[in-house]
């Protein structure tokens, strides 16, 4: 009897564990040769929950070389930290407005090349997933390392990186200002998606075509606070395709300018109506004498 109860007690946490959200790390090959490219995919499995934020990091073994990170088809709409190598580790943080509840969704993937033979392990660490409940409740999350065997045989040709000939999606930067940011000065907020390789970075240019592009990120403090200069923001994907967006500016004088034009047009229309009315209906009074 005691043994049954013990088994039951052991089963309960296992059942709870199996219902936890999962960050799944999978590779398209479990065994590769030196020089061979393979991909590792990171996916979110909410397991019945609604997840709206996640973060983590992957330490890359020395025997693997990172060729490319792809986040084009990611379920993460807004990256706080786009997946990239920072301090020798691949770190990522992002949010999914409204939460993600489907069975499985891609987060990002890594294209890797094996450099030396042996067994290597990939694992996600410092992992956090938060529930879409308005409070940012942290959930227990499970993940497992993935093992790859690298054989001594070398390959001369490996699979090529996926082709991406499409530009990132069109977007419209927003001009805004807020006392809490840049001392209330005008700034730009922008974000777009690239459904193939993913957005690599953004560049901005203030002024004419002779001005240089500056690599930046959102929010961007506008240099010319008079907002007289043309501003163009461009998104560059990981394959080098570019999507440009011209910023629609509303300088301080625009309200007065548009107001003045509206006033003049109104006066003209009024004058025209009076003119027509007088032409059609006005008759001079005949003199009584």
């Amino acid at each position, binding site marked *: 009897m005691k043994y049954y109860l013990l088994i039951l007690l052991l089963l309960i946490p296992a059942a709870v564990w199996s219902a936890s959200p999962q960050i799944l790390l999978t590779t398209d090959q479990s065994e590769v040769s030196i020089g061979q490219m393979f991909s590792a995919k990171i996916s979110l499995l909410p397991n019945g929950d609604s997840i709206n934020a996640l973060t983590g990091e992957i330490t890359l073994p020395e025997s693997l070389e990172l060729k490319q990170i792809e986040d084009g*088809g990611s379920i993460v709409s807004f990256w706080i930290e786009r997946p990239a190598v920072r301090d020798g580790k691949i770190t990522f943080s992002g949010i999914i407005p409204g*939460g993600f*509840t489907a069975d499985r*969704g891609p987060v990002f993937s890594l294209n890797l090349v094996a450099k030396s033979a042996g067994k290597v392990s990939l694992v996600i660490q410092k992992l956090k997933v938060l529930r879409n409940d308005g409070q940012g409740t942290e959930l227990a999350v499970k993940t497992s390392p993935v093992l790859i065997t690298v054989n001594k045989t070398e390959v001369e040709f490996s699979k090529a990186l996926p082709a991406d000939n499409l530009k990132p999606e069109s977007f419209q930067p927003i001009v805004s200002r807020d006392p809490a940011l840049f001392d209330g000065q005008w700034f730009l907020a922008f*974000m777009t998606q690239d459904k193939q390789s993913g957005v690599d970075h953004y560049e901005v240019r203030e002024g004419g075509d002779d001005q240089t592009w500056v690599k930046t990120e959102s929010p961007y403090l506008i240099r010319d606070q008079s907002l007289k200069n043309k501003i163009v923001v461009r998104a560059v994907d990981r394959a080098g395709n570019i999507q440009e967006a011209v910023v629609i500016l509303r300088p301080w004088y625009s309200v007065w300018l548009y107001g003045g034009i509206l006033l003049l047009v109104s006066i003209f229309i009024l004058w025209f109506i009076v003119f027509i009315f007088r032409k059609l209906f006005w008759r001079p009074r005949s003199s009584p004498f």
Partner: protein
Amino acid sequence: MVVALATVSLARADEYTASSFRVIDPVLAPAGFSSSTSFQLFGSLGEPGLGTSTASGFGLQGAFLYFPIVSTPVVSATAGDGLVALSWTAVTASLGWTVGGYNVGQATVSGGPYSYTSLGNIISSTRSSLTNGTPYYFVIRVEDALGYTIATSTEVTATPVAAPSGAGPVPSGSGSSSNNQITGVNLSGHGYPLSKVTVLKDGQIITVTIAGPDAKFEVTQTGLSAGQYLFAVYGEDSTGRRSSLFTFPVLLTAGVVTNISGIFLAPTIAVDKSEVKYGDNLAIFGQATASSTVTIAVNSNQEIFTKTLSDRQGAYLYNFDTTLVERGDHTTKAKVALANEISPFGTAVNFHVGDKNILTEPNSKCPKKGDLNDDCRVNLVDFSIAAYWYHRTLTTAFIPREKSSLNGDGRIDLTDFSIMAYYWTG
């Protein structure tokens, strides 16, 4: 032993409560399923007296079959060459129901009759060997663990189109358009009568439309790329209250307009008092689809469920008797059912049962949290402001803003972004 314990656990009777009665320890009577050539009899584990009794002063909804929760799936259909790829949102079921699997119903006439194929517990299926140029109509039927139907989606249609010669096996054509150069999505569903419906693509607003008098809406968005998208829809009722975001992933195919039907926005909900004196009534109200059944859940030690009807404008009101719950903090939420469609539960609102009545503050159209620049929206600008302060020491000027709009811990971290994602308006 384990099985025995599980069985005992299932057989334990729970109390039923409503505003005017309580059923203590209802008797469980195992039942079964019978059929012959001319009839079918469905049984259940529940009280013998299944049905609704009414009198001038009360209504009795007996048995367990009234309050199990299940939502209907949102189905997307993408046409290809001689095929239609279907995918749907996973259904949530609880309080007695578990999802056992899905069936796809297929017909060449709108409304059926459908021929059903059992798929198991998966959320996508490709129907092949179809005739190009013929419209096909599909529904997804949800079965419980015993194989009984517990929900059916709305119908979705797609017309397979032959691939251009030499184009290879890539799917082409669309459910609603023969122009295979257009990549896009067609969304349809229920909001609130004559109310605003906002559609977001990957967190940014792409269109705002107005639902018809019957609360139905339909939106088409083209000019998209092939790939994975996360669409979200929310509604605003006649007083400006917003529904929760209804999100669903869609994989778009190049040159195809994907049809997505069955989007069903949860009702908006509000209460007239933030604190209600124990024994007094609490008015729970909001807007839903017109002339539909609204199920209201009140969270307490024993979760309470009750039902009411919405009027032709979609408005509903339920006076909740607070003697049914203990003193303390509670939440309430609502879902809506119309014909075979059932929405998920919407946002929960808080109230406190105590010693006095405190009226709720007038409805604010602004999100309660996440709005860092006070423009009554939570969008890219707020995200950018928060992203700037991520891993930075907050200034004394920004700390009060973080306290009022986020979690108030004096720093910007993932939790703050999660709060922002929950209250997101685009």
